[in-house]
């Protein structure tokens, strides 16, 4: 197992290097520079600033410089935010986004699985249809609609919860709920479909023929088999939830990564764009590795190289 993880970590570095290279090139292809929006800068001033940030040098030199700094863990400084290092900006945004995302993922998946289980066990009954309606609504209605409705009713009309910002538990409730609806709907749908298939499989009849109780049938035999496809969808979803959801963070003024990334793109803030992109990529690859390891735990047929046998 250790050998396998080491090998994967090696691939991870290569992947990150390639991503860094491509996003650097793509970013340079974008029209404009971090200074484009500054109207009052004279040509001379511009030259001074460009020289200061090394933007006057050939792109290849800039690239090698960037990679050199990157290897040393230096992501550069922001062009817009008063020369703050990108690492510290990330450090400020990541915990907030991750907190929001993890809660939403956890709560959404938990209730989604409950709903999916209920729907599959009570297949073709009113419970199934009810769960179905909830999950179709959750999938098809964008999260900002829920966010807006929550803000209007819970926040403004009834005055129960604050409508914006991040920090206190009260402030966290509404963004988390709005963000958790989609993972709930998705996991409910997937688990339901998968459970119905598993419950109808031959080995469930074998288990039943042993005299196994209905409870053990579902939780000991069926659930584990039904979880495998769910893991596949939940991985990428976890990444997108935890790396800052632009819309929800914007609506609730949550100072997460999503906000920083949008601002970075809008102002051509090269170092912010590169920093967040690399962070997203790193996180995504990490989650994929975790998913692969999880597969091995849940499904013995997927034995990872370097396992016991």
């Amino acid at each position, binding site marked *: 197992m250790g050998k396998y993880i080491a090998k994967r970590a090696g691939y991870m570095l290569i992947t990150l290097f390639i991503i860094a290279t491509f996003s650097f090139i793509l970013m340079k292809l974008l029209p404009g520079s971090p200074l484009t929006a500054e109207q009052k800068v004279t040509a001379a001033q511009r030259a001074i600033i460009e020289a200061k940030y090394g933007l006057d040098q050939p792109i290849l030199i800039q690239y090698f410089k960037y990679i050199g700094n990157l290897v040393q863990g230096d992501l550069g400084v922001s062009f817009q935010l008063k020369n703050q290092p990108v690492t510290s900006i990330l450090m400020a945004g990541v915990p907030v986004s991750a907190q929001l995302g993890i809660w939403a993922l956890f709560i959404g998946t938990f209730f989604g699985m409950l709903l999916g289980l209920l729907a599959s066990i009570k297949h073709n009954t009113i419970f199934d249809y009810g769960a179905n309606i909830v999950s179709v609504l959750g999938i098809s209605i964008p999260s900002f609609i829920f966010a807006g409705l929550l803000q209007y009713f819970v926040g403004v009309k009834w005055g129960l919860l604050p409508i914006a910002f991040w920090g206190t538990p009260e402030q966290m409730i509404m963004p988390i709920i709005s963000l958790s609806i989609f993972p709930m709907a998705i996991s409910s749908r997937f688990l339901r479909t998968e459970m119905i298939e598993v419950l*109808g*499989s*031959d*080995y469930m*009849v*074998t*288990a*039943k*023929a*042993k*005299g*196994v*109780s*209905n409870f053990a049938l579902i939780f000991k*035999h069926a659930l*584990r*088999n039904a979880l495998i496809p769910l893991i596949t969808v939940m991985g990428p979803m976890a990444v997108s939830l935890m790396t800052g959801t632009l819309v929800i963070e914007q609506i609730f003024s949550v100072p997460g990564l999503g906000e920083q990334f949008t601002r970075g793109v809008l102002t051509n803030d090269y170092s912010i764009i590169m920093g967040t992109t690399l962070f997203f990529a790193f996180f995504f690859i990490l989650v994929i590795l975790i998913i692969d390891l999880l597969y091995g735990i*849940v*499904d*013995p*047929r997927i034995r990872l190289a370097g396992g016991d*046998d």
Partner: protein
Amino acid sequence: MENILEVKNLHVSFDTYGGEVQAVRGVSFDLKKGETLAIVGESGSGKSVTTRALAKLIPSPPGRIKEGEILFEGKDLATLSEREMQKIRGKDISTIFQDPMTSLNPTMKIGTQVMEGLLKHNKISKKEARKRTLELLELVGLPEPEKRIDQYPHQFSGGQRQRIVIAIALACGPKILIADEPTTALDVTIQAQILELMKDIQKKVDSSIIFITHDLGVVANVADRVAVMYAGKIVEIGTADEIFYNPKHPYTWGLLGSMPTLDNEEESLIAIPGSPPDMLNPPIGDAFATRNEYAMEIDFVEQPPMFKVSDTHYAATWLLHEHAPKVEPPLAVQSRMKDNLHANVPEERKKEGDRS
């Protein structure tokens, strides 16, 4: 001999969007202690449904036991609750399923799967259960049980998996073992091994076996008695000798005639024309009438009752009525009846056959 199970007038139906599918329509038979009863018939004849109904393994809805009694040790299983059935399943009545590739849970160690029934029905510790499991795996001929008990189903071949399925079924020493086409999904050499194993085990554990198959060669090999099912009914039932050497029902003739033998190279197989009836709207008279070249007018009007041929042999065909014309089975069937005698029947029965 004592009856361990009596099935009386069992009806099983499935409620579908198209209407009620009458899969089993009044099946009655009994099972004696220690005997092997084979149930034969083509696909869709209701043989699997009948036996699944015995352990109440029919998915419900859509399936339901509409009518009838399943008497096991004085209890009518048809009326027992799900909770009471859970105590009987796996302990008194176990089932071996057809396809070993799909009938084991892929994410559970095989030892755990065998142990599960042991722990459920006996008050024993995990350690004891593991010991018993090792013995069971040994009994079914799985090599190196100590090493393999903690492996997963995908690490075994089809034949080995079927041995594990058999070990699961045998775990609690069931009084009735239902084998639902246990060799159909296996290749021929493995089939023979599994059949040998089952015969071996029957001697050791003294269970009664209900053996479902559509392979008459297998029947000749294992069965004491044979029930032939067609369209949800038993059309002929008797000892294996009676069914093989003195079949009375034209459908049984058809089955025997369609069985290939090694001896007759030139002779072509006789197919039974047509296809089984639609069980959504079963025919009024004898369900086999439209495919039966010996059908009489009455076959299309009224269902034949069970006519007694001997104390152990019954057949549901109007041909046995006293007014019916004398009909002999087709020659091909007659010759096959003799072939069976040499090809598939075990030694002791061969001698009996030679005498008759």
